[in-house]
């Protein structure tokens, strides 16, 4: 990537963040002033001391963690089967797996809401987690499938020839060589779940409140300082969680406890 392109991309990411940082500490900037009179920490104090905000963070993390974990557990055998085995209807199965990519999110959300209402699992963390799995799973499978494909069937053949069954192949040959892909797919499903608004709002029914739902409510109030502070909090939290997944799930947990 050329240096110029790097500068452009970095600027495009940084400008909105800097804008939010600026406004989270400033409630008013009358024309023609360019620099505010002082720093206003009221919103940050309110944000840190808000029990509702802390609880919402907790719910968001729990929902996204569960979503990521279930997605990995479902995606791993699915991607393994799609890549390493030949079976009837394989293209159809692959099509079904990636279907959520092609369905508009509003249709998906309304359909899931209707189905979950019938099943009686709305307004619960379980319902929200299950609904989040639907849009997250295709990303997880796609990343893991790529990783299996990269290793190819040769390792599988070599492992089988040395006596390994399918489970041993997965745990003793494939998984140890897939740390990067596991971390990536876990992070991806975590982030997608972490930023789900519509599904959480519909399936959670306002009772299960995650950060995007809270952020949406704050946006409706129209307070720019509040919106900026909460948005920044959302970004910082997402970055911290992704870092922690990488540190503990990507390197330690999988190697130490799963294998």
């Amino acid at each position: 990537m050329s240096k110029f392109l790097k500068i452009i991309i970095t600027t495009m990411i940084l400008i909105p963040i800097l804008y939010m940082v600026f406004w989270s500490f400033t409630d008013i900037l009358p024309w023609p002033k360019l620099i505010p009179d002082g720093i206003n920490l009221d919103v940050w104090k309110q944000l840190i001391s808000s029990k509702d905000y802390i609880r919402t963070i907790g719910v968001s993390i729990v929902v996204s963690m569960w979503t990521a974990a279930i997605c990995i557990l479902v995606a791993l055998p699915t991607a393994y089967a799609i890549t390493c085995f030949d079976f009837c209807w394989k293209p159809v199965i692959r099509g079904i797996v990636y279907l959520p990519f092609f369905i508009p999110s509003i249709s998906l959300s309304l359909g899931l809401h209707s189905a979950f209402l019938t099943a009686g699992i709305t307004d619960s963390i379980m319902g929200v987690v299950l609904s989040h799995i639907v849009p997250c799973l295709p990303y997880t499978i796609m990343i893991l499938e790529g990783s299996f494909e990269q290793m190819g069937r040769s390792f599988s053949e070599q492992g089988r020839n040395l006596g390994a069954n399918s489970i041993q192949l997965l745990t003793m040959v494939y998984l140890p060589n897939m740390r990067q892909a596991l971390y990536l797919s876990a992070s991806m499903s975590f982030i997608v779940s972490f930023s789900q608004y519509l599904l959480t709002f519909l399936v959670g029914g306002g009772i299960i409140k995650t950060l995007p739902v809270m952020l949406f409510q704050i946006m409706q109030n129209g307070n720019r300082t509040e919106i900026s502070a909460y948005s920044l909090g959302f970004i910082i939290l997402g970055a911290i969680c992704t870092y922690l997944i990488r540190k503990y799930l990507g390197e330690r947990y999988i190697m130490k406890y799963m294998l």
Partner: protein
Amino acid sequence: MHLFNTKISRRKIYYEIHALGDDMSFFQIKNITKKYGELKVLNDISLSAKQGEFISILGESGSGKTTLLRIISGLEGQFAGEILLKDRNITKLSTQRRGVSMVFQDYLLFPHLNAIENIEFGLKIRGVTKSQRYREAKNLLELVQMDRHENKYPHQLSGGQKQRIAIARAVIVKPLLLLLDEPFSSLDANLRVDMCDFIRNIQRQTSITTILVTHDREEAMKISDRIALLYGGEIAQFDEPVKLYEKPSDLYTASFMGDVNILAEEEGYYLAVRPENIRLSSSDREGCNSAIVKDLQYTGSRTKCKALYEDKEISFFLAGNAEKVKISSKIYIEIDKSKILKIKA
């Protein structure tokens, strides 16, 4: 069932050496036919091996030799025919249950395991205790002369070293049959010679019945007890290297196994002679014939001379750089009549 026992003493390894068994039925493949759609890749292949024998499957690219090896290993399905190994019909057994180990062309060492862990893999799968599998892997590391590299990962090893580890990994599970798929193809020329000797030594020490797939006739001749030459999915000839060279069944076998000069054609046979059975003669004495030199190819220890003899191009070898022989000059050659091959046309 242990095919060989290991004892370790003063860092020397002694393998109980089994003499070649007389029983041709130790390993048999019967009437193997394999099709990919309409394309027949293997056609009615049958061959057998004695216990402890070293067989090579030799052939050009696309002759079906790797497919045959994959069928034997159980990695290729949907074929007709039978495979028998030590009184068991293994045709329908999975690769895990066949007692057949395969060393793949590109070694396929597991990148997350170091050398000794790679060797231990098969035993770990079989639930062998850590101390025992370490002991056995260590013995094999010494056998393949890699004991100084036990903690190295595949990316830290050279091609030849990787191959030694791959062989040790295949041998540790004590297979009844060892399959080697073009093991020398990714090695450079000097290393190929060393590895060829090395593999033959290991095979002699372990006495594991071995099948090697190669396209290199010299390697196959050097290393094998018998060679099956594949041509177009069929066995052209299956015999000892010397018989393939000196008594080829057809012209394809004769020319695949080495240079051959066709001297005449009579009653459905070619009369031919190998280049080493043509000698340069100093004079026009009885039994000598004249020829015109067309080309000289100097290769160091000898020079290949191409000449026109009775309107046919023949080739033979001259010792050293053969300074006296010049292109377009007339020479006298002597053909060893006792070595003339009669090959089916």
